[in-house]
């Protein structure tokens, strides 16, 4: 880290420490200020809320006024055919009623609640007011519409509040307002309501557009203690955040300042990550801030690690931290080459280590299984039952968690397996024994699971896990793939294994759910139900009748708030007046209407035993004195003691989350068996004799519980049988077809689809982050080819799938409507034949629920409670009315949403009535849904997409490989290396091109040799001429001088001494000249000077490796770090390394590994090959110039390498050589300034 940055970090650390101290002092100050200003502030707060609530209602009023104006114009324009207006207001949330001048309803839309105009409302013309009807409150506007011919009353309304909400997802205007303002308030939608003077609440009137009071709103006063808690929470949170920032700053300072050691730095980094995760956990970040489904423990929680994975988000955070730690550990392992160090261990340690590593590897498998089991068993998310194509955030997060967990376990397993394979390769050659290692590992895995009481996963998933980890490990050892590519295939493998485990544990959970379902049936005993009835009756006083003003809704509200609702019990809540006339009721079971109940004053619980259908009734009755009258409250519950209610509408079912909700109840059979007989035969046609024997034995032997496979209706059913403790010795059986527990491809794809999206998102993210580095790849031929292949493959699949999807959707609808039509026609023919006196008898006979309309009014409905609580309107749908009554159509099909439930209806005209049959009660929809098809489709698509990407990558690689190879060889030739050849095994056009290219290079090489020979000869000639010329020059005077000296001697010249002195001096000078000439020639032939520069060895080695990429030989680099910078001559170094690698290949090696390691004072490079080695007698000669065992070459390569390495104060030596290969070691010193 730069010094300036470190200084900034120091400064920031001080600021953070100061911040923590200041916040500590700030907390009491804030509280004291809050206390002082509380009275004023709380008033301001309430006033602000009041203003906002009034504003929101004013907005609604304006909306209503505007809509009314538009509809009024529409009515005036289309007075002849008002139903044309339906199209204009189809998607509107307006409840439209148009009454004639006699107050009769003449036009309405789908949303309606009134059939005649209440004349008391005429006093409220043109102003907004509230109406509460069947628990629903509307804001309304009544207008007079005067046309040329007639006078109409137009009532437009919008829904404000709904007490009859069957679905939690339904939100009303008041719910949204409460969420928006984050305030607790209640509105009494009565203009005569009084303003409360309760000290705990602040009440104020709601004013309409005429400034009249139309309701009273009451807000709970905010409390000071709550404000103090908020101050504590937020100041604490800021302190926690600052502490974490402080910790991060300190860690970065320690890592950068304290040590230079790679190992210690990374060790501190791991420690910091662990402490950071623990700090986040103890500070409850982010669980204290996020309060949604991502942190909801119902969606996942485990007490593992004292709760460090106690919610989906905590699990995600923990997984991310572990993955980071794994990445760092991987780096440390690579850097220190522990695998090589392990190889040097003595034999005993070697075997012990192999056993330990194997054990760890298998424990990783077990841990993987256990974690996925926990994800299913400790989660309320039903991944396969509640799956959506656009997954909910929590499902997306948990699916991502599964992928991350898979990645963690597979990465750990691969690390361990790498150790095992490296150790094994020391003893045995890995090349030949790879398959044996693989099979051995599978056998050991099998034995490991076989001897365990509760093995994880299945045989097949374990085989897949071992195969995948082995494949990754092998690929790591054999190929030098990029980290990104490694990450992608690891993620795909992780996804496949984790989703396989998930589907397996889900089917196990479904089996367990059969048991839970059975236990649930007998969970409630008579005392508990009596108690619940007792408590529900006592709760009556908490229901505010004055506010609801409808006894049907009161009964419904009582049920909604009672324990009985959560238990899915069939019940009847009825309210009588003092003359025992029915005031109102709610029931989810028609049968309970048939009993006679004795009314009593005091609360008593009675029991009616019904011997015919095995259903008992428990009921309680109590009288209450209300303001105006005395009432009797009756609560009756079907106490079956055996089986759940089958006829209950799905609208009134309490589909809870949790373990039993994993059970798809649509194909579950529940029945009660007594010796030799079934108690409930409604769903079961036959049980074969052998199965009957099994069930009888179960009862006779008084076995409390057992798992059986029995034949029901000629199908095999997996059954949980539980003996009830009742005197009848009932055997409660919950069965599901065996075929439903088999591995389901569609289920697999549901999660794999999400994983595919996550993997693709990661890939895109990686590309975006590294856009600069990989920009060139975008324009490569290979990328273009891959993208084209993907597009060509996917487009037809998507089009065909979309078409099939539409066809299936239409077909499903057609079948559903056809079934409803048949039922409607059956009812119609009964009515026409007058076989029955009333509609109730037809309903009992046909077992079909239906509705009958006369003109536009509902005159009969088999499920009265749906009208009683306002779920179904008393007026026929206007579109149906228009089609059948006005357009005289015989039949009309209609689809609508009722309480978030999609309901299909068929209307048929019969004389003067209209019959409606709908599927509101159909719990079983057997036809293939669009959703099921979508799941399958998108699952297959995601799988295909990943497959297409992998296949297209492979094919584009195959196609572009020769082109790339040609390009590299061309570059090498351009650099002067003519020894390379383009190797193509195929027999296509590329092969012809390669052969032509190789011929061309061969010719160039031959020509080059000839030219070189000629040049060498010329050079020698020139050299000889020059040498001769240069030597001749001094030799001639020397010769003359020596002749002169000889002549002087022969003549006994007196000047001999003088001549001798002069001649020898001149000769010596000439000899010096000759020496200089020799030196000059020597200098001329000398090697070029070394140019030292800072070079990244890793990058340099990679450059050299690049030259051998397409040679069917593997050259691999293992560098402890990403960058090793030294001072060398880069060209010399590359030439040296190139020579050494070529020597290896010439010694029959097909695999060269270059290891780069950094010690304190030097860089050690080891070039290891698997060639035939160097004979012993030649080892000492390899660095001598002109020594060569090859037929070609000058024998200068190794001597030049030695010369170069020694010139930079390094060392080169042959570390080892044998018939298995040679290792050459180069040591380069690290200079002080590096």
């Amino acid at each position: 880290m730069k010094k300036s940055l470190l200084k900034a970090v120091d400064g920031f650390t001080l600021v953070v420490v100061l911040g923590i101290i200041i916040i500590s002092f700030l907390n009491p100050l804030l509280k004291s200020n809050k206390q002082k200003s509380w009275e004023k502030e709380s008033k301001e707060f309430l006033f602000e809320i009041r203003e906002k609530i009034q504003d929101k209602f004013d907005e609604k009023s304006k909306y209503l006024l505007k809509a009314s104006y538009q509809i009024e114009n529409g009515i005036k324009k289309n007075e002849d055919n008002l139903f044309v207006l339906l199209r204009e207001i189809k998607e509107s949330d307006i409840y439209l009623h148009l009454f004639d001048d006699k107050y009769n309803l003449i036009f309405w839309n789908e949303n309606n609640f009134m059939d005649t105009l209440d004349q008391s409302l005429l006093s409220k013309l043109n102003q907004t007011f509230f109406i509460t009807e069947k628990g629903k409150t509307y804001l309304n506007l009544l207008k007079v519409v005067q046309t040329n011919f007639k006078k109409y009353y137009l009532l437009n309304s919008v829904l404000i509040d709904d007490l009859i909400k069957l679905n939690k997802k339904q939100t009303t205007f008041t719910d949204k307002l409460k969420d928006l303002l984050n305030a607790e308030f209640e509105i009494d939608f009565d203009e005569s309501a009084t303003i409360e003077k309760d000290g705990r609440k602040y009440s104020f009137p709601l004013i309409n557009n005429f400034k009249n009071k139309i309701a009273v709103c009451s807000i709970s006063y905010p409390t000071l203690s709550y404000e103090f808690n908020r101050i504590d929470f937020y100041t604490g949170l800021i302190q926690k955040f600052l502490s974490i920032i402080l910790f991060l700053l300190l860690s970065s300072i320690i890592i950068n300042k304290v040590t230079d050691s790679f190992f210690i730095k990374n060790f501190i980094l791991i420690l910091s990550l662990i402490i950071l995760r623990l700090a986040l956990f103890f500070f409850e970040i982010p669980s204290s801030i996020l309060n949604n489904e991502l942190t909801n423990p119902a969606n996942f929680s485990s007490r593992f690690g004292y709760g460090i994975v106690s919610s989906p988000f905590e699990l995600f955070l923990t997984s991310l931290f572990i993955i980071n730690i794994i990445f760092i550990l991987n780096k440390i392992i690579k850097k220190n080459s522990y695998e090589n160090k392990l190889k040097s261990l003595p034999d005993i340690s070697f075997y012990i280590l192999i056993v330990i590593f194997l054990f760890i590897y298998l424990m990783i498998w077990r841990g993987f299984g256990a974690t996925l089991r926990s994800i299913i068993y400790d989660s309320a998310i039903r991944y396969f039952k509640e799956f959506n194509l656009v997954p909910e955030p929590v499902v997306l997060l948990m699916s991502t968690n599964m992928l991350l967990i898979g990645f963690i376990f597979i990465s750990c397993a691969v690390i361990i397996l790498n150790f095992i394979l490296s150790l094994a390769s020391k003893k045995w050659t890995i090349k030949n024994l790879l398959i044996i290692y693989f099979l051995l590992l599978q056998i050991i895995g099998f034995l490991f699971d076989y001897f365990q009481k509760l093995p994880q996963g299945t045989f097949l998933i374990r085989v897949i896990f071992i195969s995948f980890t082995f494949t990754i490990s092998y690929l790591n050892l054999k190929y030098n793939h990029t980290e990104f590519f490694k990450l992608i295939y690891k993620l795909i493998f992780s996804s496949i294994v984790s989703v396989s485990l998930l589907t397996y544990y889900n089917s196990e959970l479904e089996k367990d759910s059969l048991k839970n379902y059975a236990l649930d049936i007998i969970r409630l005993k008579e005392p508990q139900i009596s108690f619940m009835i007792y408590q529900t009756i006592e709760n009556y006083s908490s229901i505010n009748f004055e506010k609801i003003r409808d006894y049907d809704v009161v009964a419904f509200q009582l049920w909604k708030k009672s324990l009985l609702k959560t238990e899915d019990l069939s019940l009847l809540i009825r309210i009588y007046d003092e003359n025992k006339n029915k005031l109102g009721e709610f029931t989810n079971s028609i049968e309970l209407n048939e009993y006679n109940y004795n009314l009593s004053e005091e609360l008593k619980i009675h029991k009616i035993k019904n011997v015919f259908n095995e259903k008992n009734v428990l009921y309680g009755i109590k009288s209450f004195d209300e303001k105006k009258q005395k009432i009797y409250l009756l609560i009756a519950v079907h106490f079956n003691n055996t089986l759940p209610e089958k006829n209950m509408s799905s609208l009134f079912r309490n589909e809870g989350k949790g373990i039993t909700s994993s059970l798809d109840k649509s194909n579950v059979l529940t029945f009660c068996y007594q010796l030799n007989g079934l108690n409930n035969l409604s769903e079961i046609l036959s049980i074969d004799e052998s199965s009957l024997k099994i069930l009888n034995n179960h009862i006779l032997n008084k076995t409390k519980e057992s798992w059986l496979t029995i034949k029901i209706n000629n199908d095999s059913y997996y059954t949980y049988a539980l003996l009830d403790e009742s005197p009848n010795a009932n055997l409660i059986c919950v069965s599901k077809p065996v075929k439903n527990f088999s591995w389901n491809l569609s289920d697999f794809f549901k999660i794999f689809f999400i994983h595919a999206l996550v993997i693709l998102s990661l890939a895109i993210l990686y590309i975006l982050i590294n856009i600069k580095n990989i920009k060139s790849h975008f324009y490569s031929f290979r990328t273009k080819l891959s993208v084209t292949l993907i597009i060509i493959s996917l487009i037809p699949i998507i089009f065909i799938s979309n078409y099939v999807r539409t066809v299936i959707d239409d077909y499903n609808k057609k079948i559903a409507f056809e079934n409803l039509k048949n039922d409607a026609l059956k009812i119609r023919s009964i009515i026409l034949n007058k076989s029955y006196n009333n509609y109730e008898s037809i309903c009992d006979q046909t077992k079909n629920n239906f509705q009958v309309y006369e003109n536009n009014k509902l005159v009969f409905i088999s499920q009265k409670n749906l009208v009683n609580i306002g779920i179904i309107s008393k007026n026929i749908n206007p579109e149906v009315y228009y089609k059948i009554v006005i357009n005289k159509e015989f039949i009309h099909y209609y689809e609508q949403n009722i309480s978030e439930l999609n309901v299909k209806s068929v209307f048929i005209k019969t004389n003067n009535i209209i019959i409606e049959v709908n599927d509101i009660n159909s719990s079983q929809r057997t036809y293939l849904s669009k959703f099921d098809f979508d799941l399958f489709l998108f699952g297959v698509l995601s799988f295909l997409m990943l497959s297409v990407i992998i296949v297209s990558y492979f094919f584009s690689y195959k196609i572009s490989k020769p082109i790339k190879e040609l390009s590299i060889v061309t570059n090498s030739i351009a650099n002067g290396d003519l020894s390379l050849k383009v190797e193509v095994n195929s027999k296509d056009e590329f092969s012809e091109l390669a052969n032509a290219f190789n011929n061309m290079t061969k010719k160039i090489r031959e020509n080059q040799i000839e030219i070189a020979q000629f040049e060498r000869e010329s050079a020698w000639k020139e050299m000889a001429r020059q040498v001769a010329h240069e030597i001749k020059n001094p030799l001639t005077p020397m010769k003359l001088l020596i002749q002169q000296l000889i002549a002087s001697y022969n003549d006994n010249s007196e000047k001999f001494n003088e001549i001798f002195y002069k001649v020898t001096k001149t000769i010596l000078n000439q000899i010096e000249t000759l020496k200089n000439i020799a030196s000059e020639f020597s200098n001329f032939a000398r090697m070029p000077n070394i140019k030292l520069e800072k070079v990244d060895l890793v990058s340099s080695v990679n450059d050299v490796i690049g030259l051998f990429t397409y040679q069917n030989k593997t050259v691999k680099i293992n560098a402890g770090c990403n960058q090793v910078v030294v001072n060398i001559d880069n060209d010399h170094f590359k030439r040296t390394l190139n020579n050494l690698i070529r020597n290896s290949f010439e010694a029959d090696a097909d695999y060269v590994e270059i290891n780069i390691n950094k010690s304190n004072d030097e860089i050690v490079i080891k070039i290891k090959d698997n060639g035939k080695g160097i004979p012993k007698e030649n080892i000492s000669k390899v660095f001598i110039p002109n020594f060569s065992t090859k037929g070609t070459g000058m024998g200068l390569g190794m001597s030049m390498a030695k010369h170069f390495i020694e010139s930079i104060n390094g060392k080169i030596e042959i570390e080892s050589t044998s018939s298995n290969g040679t290792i050459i070691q180069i040591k380069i010193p690290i200079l002080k300034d590096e």
Partner: protein
Amino acid sequence: MKLNLSIMKNCKSIIIILVIFLCNLLFAQDSKSKEALNVFLRIEEGINDNSVDKFAAYFSLKNYFSLNNSAVGYFSDNQSYYILKDYFSINQPVSFKFSNIITETSNPFASGTLKFIHKGIRKTATIFVSLQLIDNKWKISQITVN
């Protein structure tokens, strides 16, 4: 006479054995009821102190919860612990007491009124708890907050 005496003696010993057996049976029943009562008291104490840890040991592998419709269904012991912990951290208990405790049944149950604070506002709810015997130990079968 001797025969009669021996019969008498045998009868006495049989009666004594029977009495002891019945006493044991009653005592065992009584002891199980006491155990159930203790579990309820522990739950009451835990809710009062806002400490789920105090009764976390009584969670079975599958517990049925219905907490004001926020969490409904069967939950594992792991989930149950954190669900209740979260629930009581949002709805901070002020006081809680079981007003009805029925232990003389195969599935003892109890209910009481919980006073709690939610976003600074005091509210009340009814808590219903029932137990079941698993491996001769009382475990929570159901907790309903309504």
